[in-house]
C-alpha cells in the first residue's frame, strides 16, 4: 500500500473554485431540464435589462444625432401670442424680419439668422402630384439648419428680393414628382402657380418617423405673397426664426442677448411675460437627455422586476437542490468538507447557473439590438461595458440569491445530513 502522508496542504484557492465549477456543472447537467428552466428566468431578466439599457442609450444617441443634424449651435425664436379669451392677440407676440436684423446687429457671435414661414402646399407635375411642407426663408437657412442644396443651387438674395417663383426640392419630394429624372430646370405647379426647380436639397434621412427629405424651400417673399400672407398679422411677420452662432459661442449668453434685444424692442417691463420664446439646441439636448434618461430608468426598472423574479427562481431551485442533496452534503462533510467548502460549492452552482443564463440572455439582447438597428433604423448599442456589466451582474445575482441556500447547506450537521434518506 502506498503510504505517503497526505498533508499538510490546505491551499490553492483557484483550484478549489475549479473543482466547485466542475461539481456545479455536473449537478446542473444531472437536472438538465430543471437547470434550463431556472436559467430561463435569469436569461429573460438579463435580456430585458440589457435591452432596456441599450434602448435607452440608443434613444439618447439618436436624439443627439438628430439635434446635431439640424445645426448644433443654434437658437430658435418663436413669437408667443396671448391666448386670452380664446382669441389670439397679435398685439403682443410678434416677430418680424426687422427684429431679426436687429438681433444680427446687436448680438455678438451670431453668424446668420433665417426667418421661416411654413405652409402645406400641393405640388403638381405632368405625371405626378404630392402635398408637402413648404418652407419660405432666406439664403442663410440652408447653412444654419445644416441642410444645403447639393445639386443645382439654393435660393439667393435676388430670389428673395424679386419674390421669384423658384423651388429647391427635398429628395423624397423630387422622387415623388420626377422619379429618377433630374428635376433641376423643370416646372412644378404649386397650388396652381408654375414654379421653376432650381436645386435639390442634400439627403437628410428621417428623425423619429418624420422624413426630413419630404419638403421644399422657396424665398420667404414668395411664400408670403402667394400663400400665407393673409394669415399673418402684418407684412413683415414671421412664424419662426433661427439664429446660428459661431462654433464655441456660449448659447446661454446668446439666449440672454437675444432675449434682451427683443425685450427692448417690444418694451417688455421687468416681471412681464415675454411675448416670445428663445430656445437653444443646447436646451433641446439637455431636455431630451433628461427625458430619455427617465425613459431608460423606467424601462430598466420594469425589466429589473423580471430579473428579480429570475433571482427568486434561482433561490427556490437552490433550496430544492440543497434539500435533495442533503445526504451528499453529509457525505462530503464526513470526508472532510468544511462548512465553507459546502457553502462555496452551492454559491458557485448558483453563480454558474446565473452566468450561463446571463450569457445567453446577453447574446439574445445583442441579436435583438442588432436586428433593431438593422431593420428599425434605431441604434441599440450594446458596448463591451454593458456586456461585461450584465455578466458581472448575473454572477452577483447568483451570489445574492444563492447565499441563503448555500449558508443553510453549510450549517447542516454532518450526521443529520448523512442520515437523511
Amino acid at each position, binding site marked *: *500500500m*502506498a*503510504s*505517503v*502522508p*497526505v*498533508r499538510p*496542504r*490546505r*491551499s*490553492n484557492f483557484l*483550484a*478549489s473554485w*475549479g*473543482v466547485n465549477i466542475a461539481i456545479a456543472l*455536473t449537478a446542473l447537467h*444531472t437536472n438538465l431540464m430543471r437547470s434550463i428552466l431556472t436559467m430561463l428566468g435569469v436569461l429573460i431578466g438579463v435580456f430585458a435589462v440589457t435591452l432596456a439599457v441599450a434602448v435607452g442609450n440608443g434613444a439618447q444617441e439618436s436624439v443627439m444625432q438628430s439635434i446635431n443634424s439640424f445645426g448644433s449651435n443654434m437658437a430658435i425664436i418663436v413669437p408667443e401670442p396671448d391666448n386670452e379669451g380664446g382669441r389670439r392677440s397679435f398685439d403682443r407676440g410678434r416677430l418680424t424680419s426687422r427684429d431679426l436684423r436687429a438681433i444680427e446687429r446687436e448680438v455678438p457671435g451670431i453668424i446668420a439668422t433665417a426667418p421661416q414661414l411654413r405652409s402645406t402646399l400641393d405640388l403638381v407635375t405632368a405625371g405626378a402630384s404630392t402635398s408637402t411642407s413648404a418652407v419660405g426663408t432666406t439664403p442663410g437657412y440652408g447653412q444654419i439648419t445644416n441642410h444645403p442644396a447639393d445639386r443645382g443651387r439654393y435660393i439667393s438674395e435676388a430670389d428673395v428680393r424679386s419674390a421669384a417663383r423658384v423651388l429647391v426640392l427635398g429628395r423624397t419630394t423630387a422622387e415623388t414628382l420626377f422619379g429618377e429624372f433630374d428635376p433641376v430646370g423643370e416646372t412644378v405647379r404649386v397650388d396652381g402657380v408654375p414654379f421653376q426647380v432650381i436645386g435639390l436639397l442634400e439627403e437628410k434621412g428621417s428623425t423619429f418617423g418624420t422624413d426630413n427629405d419630404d419638403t421644399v424651400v422657396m424665398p420667404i417673399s414668395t411664400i408670403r405673397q402667394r400663400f400665407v400672407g393673409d394669415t399673418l398679422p402684418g407684412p413683415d411677420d414671421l412664424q419662426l426664426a433661427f439664429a446660428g452662432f459661431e462654433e464655441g459661442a456660449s448659447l446661454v449668453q446668446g439666449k440672454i442677448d437675444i432675449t434682451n434685444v427683443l425685450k427692448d424692442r417690444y418694451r417688455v417691463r421687468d416681471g412681464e411675460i415675454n411675448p416670445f420664446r428663445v430656445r437653444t439646441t443646447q436646451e433641446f439636448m439637455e431636455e431630451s437627455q433628461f427625458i430619455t434618461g427617465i425613459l431608460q430608468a423606467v424601462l430598466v426598472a420594469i425589466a429589473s422586476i423580471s430579473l428579480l423574479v429570475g433571482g427568486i427562481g434561482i433561490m427556490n431551485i437552490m433550496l430544492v437542490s440543497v434539500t435533495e442533496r442533503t*445526504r*451528499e452534503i453529509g*457525505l*462530503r*462533510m*464526513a*470526508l*472532510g*468538507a*468544511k*462548512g*465553507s*467548502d459546502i457553502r462555496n460549492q452551492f454559491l458557485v452552482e448558483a453563480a454558474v447557473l446565473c452566468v450561463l443564463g446571463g450569457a445567453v440572455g446577453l447574446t439574445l439582447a445583442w441579436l435583438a439590438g442588432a436586428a433593431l438597428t438593422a431593420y428599425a433604423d434605431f441604434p441599440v448599442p450594446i458596448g463591451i461595458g454593458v456586456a461585461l456589466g450584465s455578466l458581472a451582474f448575473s454572477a452577483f445575482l447568483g451570489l445574492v440569491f444563492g447565499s441563503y441556500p448555500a449558508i443553510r447547506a453549510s450549517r447542516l*450537521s*454532518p*450526521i443529520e445530513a*448523512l442520515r437523511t434518506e
Partner: protein
Amino acid sequence: MEQHSGKPLIETRDLVKSYNLGGEIIHAVNGVSLLIEHGEYVAIMGTSGSGKSTFMNMIGCLDVPTSGQVLIDGTPTADMSSDELAVLRNEKIGFVFQQFNLLARTSSIDNVAVPLIYAGLDKPERRTRATEKLIDMGLGDRLLNTPAKLSGGQQQRVAIARALVTEPLMLLADEPTGALDTRTSEEIMAIFESLNASGITVIVVTHEDEIAEHAKRRIEFRDGKVIEDRPVGNRTVAVGASLAEDV
C-alpha cells in the same frame, strides 16, 4: 501510515449521548469509557437501538456527545470547531457506509478523489492517488465506471478506496456488508483483514456474528452501555484494553 503518538488511538471517557423525544430523555449512549489502540481490529456489536452506531458516529467526530470526552490520538475533540473536526475527519478517519454513499454519475476515480479535494491537493495529484488506491482494491479496470455500472461489492471497494485515500489512522465501517450477499461480504471482510494486517486500525459496527468473527476484539452494546468487551475466538489481542482496566 503515519507514525503514531504512542497514545491510544481512541479514548472515550464517560461518553453520553441523549435525545429528547417528546419530553422523554433517551440515552442512546450512556456513559461509555473505552480505549482502542493503534492497530486494533474491533467489532462493535449490538442490536438495533443498542447505541453502537451513535457511539461510532461520536468516535468518528460526525456527532457531538451530550457529555463526556472523545480523544483521538490523544487529542480531546470537545472544544474543536466544526472546521477543525472536518480537518480531523479528513486526515485521520476513513468512513465506510452500509449504502456505500458514492456520488452518482461520478466515476470511481472522481469518487475516490473527493476527500483529496478537501485536503487541498491539485488535480493530477488527486488522480494519481485515487488511481493507486483503486488498483490496490483490484479495480484498476473500473477507474472510469460510474457506480451504476458497478456491482455492490465493487461499489463497496470503491468506497473503501475512498476511505483510505487520505492515508487515515483508522477505518470506521458501519454495517459495511449490510447491503451485500454472503460471498461478497467475505471478500470485503478479507480486505479489512489485510488492511488491518498492514497496520491500519479497523472498527466495524455490525449486528452479524459472522462479520464480528473476523475482528480481534468484540465490544457489545446494549441500552447504550458496553455489556461485553473481549478478544475474539482464539486470536491474540495485541492490547488488553478492556473496560475494567481503563476505569
